[in-house]
């Protein structure tokens, strides 16, 4: 039976939820999970104080978190395997420095989704993060590999100093995306004006993006068929770095109308 943590009530302060990742909960029964400690503000609280726990940590490593978790930071941070499904909004740093596995958020995410912690050389190094709603600022900052896909919009500064990997925002990527981007891909399903350090290359149908969009559809995002059929504008940058990164912007509104 899948391990499920259902929020009892809003916590009194922000909670660091990073310990709640499948690989650390594997093999634990509900009472053992309930007894784990979490940092809440300056205090230490038991999981049981915040969540109703059911099920147990399974070999399949699936963890379900349910409730309004906007005050929970670092959900799924540094996970390397398994799957976390969140039914509700999440706070900042969700999926920070993930190296594997899948984090699916059926709601909105706060700032620094899938990002690197301050001072880290790289953020995400693998895995997949999917958010059905919007994400805050600097999604995918510093990522080296992996996929961050957002059904809505990302805030400003997505893909900040990203090394590689992909950030997709079907509802549009925020301003100042891809600053310091070396080889990463930023994808905007809506028009956006790239930074001046990006130069227009061409319009085309990117075959790899087609696969990625099909993948995020499998993971729960609603992907308009027009995005799979239509053409995308490719902007290359950041020209102050390697000019090996790209921003792909859907520009086939005719296809979308059909």
């Amino acid at each position, binding site marked *: 039976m899948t391990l499920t943590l259902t929020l009892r009530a809003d916590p009194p302060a922000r909670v660091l939820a990073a310990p709640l990742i499948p690989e650390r909960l594997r093999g634990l029964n509900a009472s053992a999970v309930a007894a784990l400690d979490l940092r809440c503000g300056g205090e230490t609280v038991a999981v049981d104080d915040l969540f109703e726990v059911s099920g147990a940590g399974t070999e399949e490593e699936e963890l379900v978190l349910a409730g309004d978790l906007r005050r929970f930071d670092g959900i799924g941070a540094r996970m390397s395997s398994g799957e976390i499904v969140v039914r509700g909004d999440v706070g900042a740093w969700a999926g920070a420095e993930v190296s594997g596995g899948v984090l699916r958020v059926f709601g909105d995410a706060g700032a620094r989704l899938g990002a690197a912690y301050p001072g880290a050389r790289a953020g995400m190094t693998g895995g997949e993060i999917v958010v059905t709603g919007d994400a805050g600022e600097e999604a995918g900052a510093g990522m080296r590999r992996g996929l961050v896909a957002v059904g809505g919009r990302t805030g400003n500064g997505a893909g900040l100093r990203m090394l590689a990997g992909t950030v997709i925002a079907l509802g549009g990527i925020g301003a100042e995306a891809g600053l310091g981007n070396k080889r990463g*891909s930023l994808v905007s399903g809506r028009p956006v004006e790239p930074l001046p350090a990006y130069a227009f290359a061409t319009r085309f149908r990117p075959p790899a993006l*087609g696969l990625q969009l*099909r993948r995020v559809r499998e993971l729960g995002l609603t992907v308009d068929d027009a995005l799979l059929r239509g053409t995308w504008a490719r902007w290359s940058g950041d020209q102050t770095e390697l000019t090996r990164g790209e921003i792909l912007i859907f520009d086939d509104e005719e296809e979308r109308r059909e």
Partner: protein
Amino acid sequence: MSGYQLGSAQIADTFAEAFPMRYARILITAASDAWALEAAHSMTGFATSVIGCKCEAAIERSLTCAETPDGRPGIAVLLFAMDREGVGKRVLERVGQSVMTCPTTACFDGLEGADKTVPLGASLRYFGDGFQASKVIAGRRFWRIPVMEGEFLVCESVGVGSGVGGGNLVIAAADEDAALAAARAAAEAMRGEGIALPFPGGIVRSGSKVGSLTSKSMAASTNHQMAPTLRAQVDDTLVPGGVGAMFEIVIDGASESAVREAMRRGLHAAAGAGATHVTAANFGGKLGQFHFPLSELRDPP
């Protein structure tokens, strides 16, 4: 000729002899069925016999948009060689020259999860001259190679499976037209999942024997025992009385059972389409690991 009667055809009491081979399944997709087919035809060209072409390859089947990784029309190609190294070399050459060059195509592995793999995109990427980029999608790495049209997408590696090569049927009738009609019916029936018929239209008219009667340097030469024009000229003819033409269908398969069932389909189709005799080629059972007695194919598919 002893054996049994099946419809109009006398089925010989013999067996086909086949060998272990290694194979890859390549999925080619394109913007249309026609372009996928162009690439597949090019990739499987000059791949009839491992002796002369270093590999044997054929279209396995067409793929619907729902069956391909990128949702476009596709073709599955099977390529066989004697060992994994051979599969790797030939796949790399043929995808590089015939698929990457073909407008709108992308190339995927059709044997995901195989224990053994050979590099494909991992090597082809160098054509990108440093401008290539990779993406890991659902745990699998792909290479984006910039080309004049846009990008060629190719999987990092392809799986290699253990298959069977050299299954065969020899289909005979009173004249060329009748024998060819029966052979075509058989080839049509034999195609399917896990089956490659590497010769033109699946049919070979120049079946061969190992070695030569006249030259030590020839690896293979005409199967004089099955040449109707030599019936009165050689002592060891195997051409049955009343037969004017014989065609062979060579079958490579993903497994022994795939070859056996393809032979069963082909045998019954030929018998129902005017063949007067059906036999098979072998080397006395001393060379091939797999034997397919025609007597075991009597029950219909």
